[in-house]
Each structure stands twice: as structure tokens, then as C-alpha cells.
């Protein structure tokens, strides 16, 4: 891509957000946390994939899916199937009545590997399946719904029902899926022990790398014409349709994209945590994923990452010390995020924090800048929404003698 293209993809205003996030994830967290906590952070980051997909689907496209756990779970289970097959080679499983098949199949009196498990001996197939199967399912669901112009609330309820169906299916068919315990005891990836500390470090960085890849794809979608069409569709679907666009195809595409993001997140979850279970698939986790996105800000892909990190961090620290408070806090968060700050953390940042930072930066830069640019900065700092009078006075007092000094020079 040309420099021009990159510049339009990452305008100056937004690139700082990416840089701060990159520094935080690549430098600050690995240096300040021990491997256990870092692994937890990696686990939370896998939810961020889902949240980014939801920003595109829900924030931009206006499609609220309550079934993202389905895709997260699919990605996770497909990865877990590969790892489980690798973990249950005939030598380690020789005490079973049928060696060479996963332990839960043996417990459920299954004597041969089911046909749909067989391709998962192949790693390339697994990777392809993680990317393609969720996309196909999302396409089928999306096509069936959006071609018939079903949207909004109905779509939310039906995706939720799909999440319920998949959970019941996984729990009911425990011979094939491991049932309510899920797939546990995953050890190696292509012979590489994923449970060692070193592997956890590497997987964390792989996760961060993939996260940025998804962020860039999402940013590309946002900045493209497609992103603007999505917003237009969300606000006035009929007008976009009357302008000659095929609205349903756009919706299907963004839903599939969200599904693939979620599946990547699920696969990375399995790799970092070492198990996959139906508790990560159903209705409750799916709707919690929406709250990560809502807390971060439904229109901000970077906010979604912070939302996923913060809510999960709050969840584990609160439920460690006050298990009873956690549900109250989460419930309150749902209500507050809808009633008080619908644009989430990103909204709070742009209304309250960003103007202050801008002013502070302007004050900081003032003495060093030559005159014309100074004027420009002062101009840009002026229309900040509702500047607090106190800050204004301090700023003016601080700035005026210095400005005079510059003028004298």
C-alpha cells in the first residue's frame, strides 16, 4: 500500500491509539506481570477478538448478535480437537480399552474415532477449518435472515437460540464432544509443549500479533467505503437500498467477518488456556461478550480491546475476593453502560479526557512552537466541548506570559 493509502487508513488522530495499545500489550504488560497473570491477560485478549467483531457488526452495522459464543466456541473446539488427537496417541492412552482415541470417547464406550474427527489429524486442515467453518455457518444464518430482511431484535433472539442449541448439543453428545467437562488435558501443539512458561510467553505474543492483524483488518473495513455504507445502513437501511446497494450482502459479509474474528479468538483461547468447554459457548458467555464491546465503546475497535481486558480483569479480581458482588457489579454495568454512557469508555475518553490531553499538549508545546503553528494549535484547542472554566483560567494564565515571551523573541 502506498504511503498515501496508509495515511488515510491511519489518520493522525487515530494512530496514537494504536501505538499506545501496542506499547501496553507488547512492552508494559509482559514486563510488569508474572507469567501467570500474563497468561490471564492473553486469555482476556482472546475475548477482545470477539469484541472487535461485535464493534463492526453491532456498532457499525447495527446487527446485534447474541450468538458470538457459537463462533468463539467453534474456533476453540476445532483447535481443541486437533490438540486432543495429538494428546491421545496410542502410547499415552494404552490403558484405555481402545487406545488412540480421546479419553472421553473411551469413557463413553465409543470404540472407533468418528469420521468427522479424522481430518483433524492434519494441522493445516485444522487451521483452515477454524477460519472456514464459522464463516460458512455465519453465512448460512446471515443469508437466511438478512435476505428476508429479518434484523434487529429477531436476529438477536435467533442467534441466542442458536447458542442455546449448540450448548445443548455439545453437552448431550458427550461421547463426541467431551460433554459438560469439555476437552481437557491438551498438551502439545505439533510436538511443542504448550504448558511450559516459555510457550505461554510465545503464545501471548502470537495472540497480540493476531489481535493487531484483526485490528488492522477492522480498521481497513472502517475506513473503506464499506464501513461508511455499514453506518448508513444502520441509520437508514431503506435509503441505502433505494440507492441501489444490496444491503443483505453487506450485512452477511460483516457478520461472517465477526464470526471469523471470534473463531480466531476461540482457537487462541484453547491454545493459551489448555481446555475448551461448553461454558464458553452458551447464552451467558455470548451476552457477556456483548458487554465487553459495549463497555469499550460500540463504535471503537480499540475501545473493544480495553473493554474486554477491563471487564475480565474486574471479573476475576472481584470474583476472587467478593464472589457475591460480581453479579451485582456486572448487572449494574449492563444497566449503566446502556443508560448513562452508551458510547462506553471510548465515548468517555473523547468527551472528557481527549480535550484535556489536547489542551495539556498545547500548553506543553506552546513555548517551543513558532508563531503561525501556535495560532493553529490554539485554534484547534478552542472548540473543545464544554471546557471547564477553572482549567481554562489556569491554561490562560500559564500560557499568556510565555506567549508574550515568544512574541518578544
Amino acid at each position, binding site marked *: 500500500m502506498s504511503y498515501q493509502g496508509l495515511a488515510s487508513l491511519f489518520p493522525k488522530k487515530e494512530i496514537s491509539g494504536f501505538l499506545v495499545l501496542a506499547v501496553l500489550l507488547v512492552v508494559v504488560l509482559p514486563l510488569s506481570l508474572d507469567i501467570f497473570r500474563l497468561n490471564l491477560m492473553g486469555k482476556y485478549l482472546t475475548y477482545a477478538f470477539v469484541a472487535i467483531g461485535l464493534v463492526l457488526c453491532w456498532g457499525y452495522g447495527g446487527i446485534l448478535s447474541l450468538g458470538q459464543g457459537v463462533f468463539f466456541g467453534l474456533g476453540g473446539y476445532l483447535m481443541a480437537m486437533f490438540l486432543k488427537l495429538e494428546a491421545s496417541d496410542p502410547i499415552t492412552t494404552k490403558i484405555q480399552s481402545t487406545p488412540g482415541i480421546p479419553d472421553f470417547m473411551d469413557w463413553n464406550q465409543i470404540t472407533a474415532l468418528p469420521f468427522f474427527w479424522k481430518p483433524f489429524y492434519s494441522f493445516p486442515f485444522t487451521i483452515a477449518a477454524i477460519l472456514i467453518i464459522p464463516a460458512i455457518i455465519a453465512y448460512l444464518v446471515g443469508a437466511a*435472515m438478512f435476505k428476508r430482511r429479518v434484523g434487529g*431484535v429477531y436476529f438477536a433472539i435467533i442467534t441466542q*437460540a442458536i447458542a442455546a*442449541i449448540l450448548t445443548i*448439543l455439545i453437552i448431550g453428545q458427550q461421547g463426541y464432544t467431551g460433554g459438560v467437562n469439555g476437552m481437557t488435558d491438551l498438551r502439545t501443539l505439533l510436538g511443542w509443549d504448550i504448558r511450559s512458561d516459555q510457550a505461554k510467553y510465545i503464545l501471548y505474543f502470537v495472540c497480540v500479533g493476531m489481535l493487531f492483524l484483526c485490528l488492522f483488518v477492522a480498521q481497513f473495513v472502517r475506513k473503506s467505503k464499506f464501513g461508511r455504507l455499514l453506518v448508513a445502513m444502520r441509520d437508514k437501511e431503506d435509503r441505502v437500498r433505494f440507492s441501489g446497494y444490496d444491503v443483505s450482502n453487506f450485512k452477511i459479509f460483516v457478520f461472517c467477518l465477526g464470526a471469523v474474528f471470534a473463531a480466531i479468538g476461540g482457537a487462541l483461547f484453547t491454545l493459551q488456556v489448555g481446555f475448551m468447554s461448553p461454558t464458553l459457548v452458551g447464552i451467558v458467555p455470548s*451476552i457477556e461478550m456483548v*458487554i465487553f464491546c459495549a463497555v469499550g465503546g460500540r463504535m471503537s475497535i480499540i475501545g473493544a480491546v480495553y473493554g474486554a481486558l477491563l471487564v475480565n480483569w474486574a471479573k476475576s479480581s472481584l470474583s476472587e475476593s467478593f464472589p457475591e458482588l460480581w453479579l451485582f457489579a456486572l448487572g449494574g454495568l449492563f444497566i449503566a453502560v*446502556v443508560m448513562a454512557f452508551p458510547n462506553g469508555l471510548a465515548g468517555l475518553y473523547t468527551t472528557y479526557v481527549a480535550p484535556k490531553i489536547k489542551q495539556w499538549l498545547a500548553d506543553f508545546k506552546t513555548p517551543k512552537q513558532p508563531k503561525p503553528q501556535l495560532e493553529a494549535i490554539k485554534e484547534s484547542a478552542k472548540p473543545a466541548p464544554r471546557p471547564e472554566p477553572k482549567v481554562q483560567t489556569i491554561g490562560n494564565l500559564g500560557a499568556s506570559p510565555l506567549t508574550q515571551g515568544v512574541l518578544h523573541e
Partner: protein
Amino acid sequence: MFAEYSTSDLLSIFAMQGVAGLILFSVFVLMALGLAIIFGQMGVINMAHGEFMILGAYVTYLTSHVFETYLPSLFSLYFILAMVLAFIAAGALGALVEWGIIRHLYNRPLDTLLATWGLSLILQQTYRSVFGAREVGVTLPDWLMGSVKVSETIELPINGLFVMCLALGISTAVGILMYRSRWGTQVRAVVQNRPMAGAVGINTAKVDRITFALGCGIAGVAGSAFTMIGSTGPTSGQLYIVDTFLVVVFGGATSLLGTIASAFTISQAQSTMEFFMSGSMAKVLTLLFVVFILMLRPQGLFTLKVRR
């Protein structure tokens, strides 16, 4: 599949499963009626609907305890009072929730969904803190226990029959209220065109609040009826919410008759299939079937023809 059963056996199986299906149907109707009013008529997605039902169940549990301790002579009658109290408690909470949360979100349906989900989490934790995490059950009065023997092979449980009568009574009452009363006309007017209804002098805010409270109150009665069939725990409500929404959507959200028809279809399909396969597979197939039909016919079985 049928080879190992004789004809009369098969007949009894279908009769018994049919009655089991009818009881499940009554339960679905009770669950869905409140939601059909709130979601179908008002367009509000109340994810806390299950928790309102559980409130009714806990109120019944408390009433039974009070009667057991203080008024053992009147114990056989407590259930009637419990249902009234459940209606009042759930309805009052519903009015409060409408005032506090829902009325600010009428034009943002997806946000209502999230807010009421948050409410459901708070209610669940409240129940857990107050009543404990264990499931509780009530002692039924004698006249609700036992079963009626129809023939050699067919027996009908009395509490099931009671739930069926209750469902019939409440749906008739709601039907009359919605389609034969002045208030029902107002509700339907507000639903179809809010500004216009306001312009002709209907107090839309008041209609909204009463409608929401009524829907929640019916959920409370449904919860009260549930205590006859199973025990109640803090998270029981969540188990029902998907089923209930599917019943309402499948029937065509704006039609009460549709809700009843879809509750019938879903419950019969599920209970008949449950006999031949595991419960979870029956559930999966039923849900898949409903989702599939909804994809073919998104507006549901019955629709209201309105010029927009």
C-alpha cells in the same frame, strides 16, 4: 421404531405423552403470555422475564411457609392467596422497572435487551443472597396431589390438570382484556402508533406502565404455578428465557392466538420426541425446527396486518 409395541400400548403412550405435552403446553403458555404482552404488544425485550417468574415462585414458597407456621388450618387454601401475592409482587416490581429503566429506552430495543439482562443478573444474585443457592420446593396441599385414573394404562396428575386450567383461565382473561376492553384498545392503539395514540388523548406513559406491570404480573403467576411442578433455584429463570422468546417469536409476536398455537406446536413436538430419544436431542431438534421455520417465515405463524 414402533415394532416392539402393541397397538394398545402405542395408544396409551401417545395419550400419556400427549397429556405430558399438554401440561408442557400450559407451562409454555403461562410463560409466554406475559412476554407476548411485553414483547409482542409493547416491543420491549425483557430478558429478566424469567426472573419475574422466579419472583412469583419465591413468593409462593414464602406464603406456604407462613401458612405452615401460623395458619395450618387454612393450609389447603394458601395456593390461591400465593398466586394473588405473586401477581402483585411481580407486577409492582415490573412497574418499578418500567419507571426506572424501560421508559427511557423505548426507541432503542437492543439496548433494552442489554439493560434487562443486567437486571436479570442483579435479581438472580439477590435471590441467591436472600434464599440461598439451593433449590427450594413447596409442600402442595392435599387436593393438588395424586392423579386421576382414566383407564388401565392412562393416569393424569392433578397438579398438571390444575396448571392446564390455570393456563386456560389466564389466557381467556388476557384475551378478553386485550380485545374486549377499553384498556386493551388503548394498548393496541399505543403499540400501533404511539404519537397518534397520544394525539387522540391516550396517556401513553400510563398505558405503557400498566401493560408492562401486567405482563410481569402474569409472569409472577406463571412462576407460582411452576412450584407445583418443580423446584425453584436462583438461576431457574434463565433456563426458560430462550424457550419463551422462541414461543413468542414463532407464533408471530403481535398475535396472542399465535403465541398459544406456537406453544402447542413446540410443546407437542418436544414431548413426543422425548419419548423416542434423549431429552437433550429432542430439545435440540425442536429448537432447530423452530429456528428453521423462522428462517423460512420470519414473521412467525400468525401476523397482524397493519398498514405502516
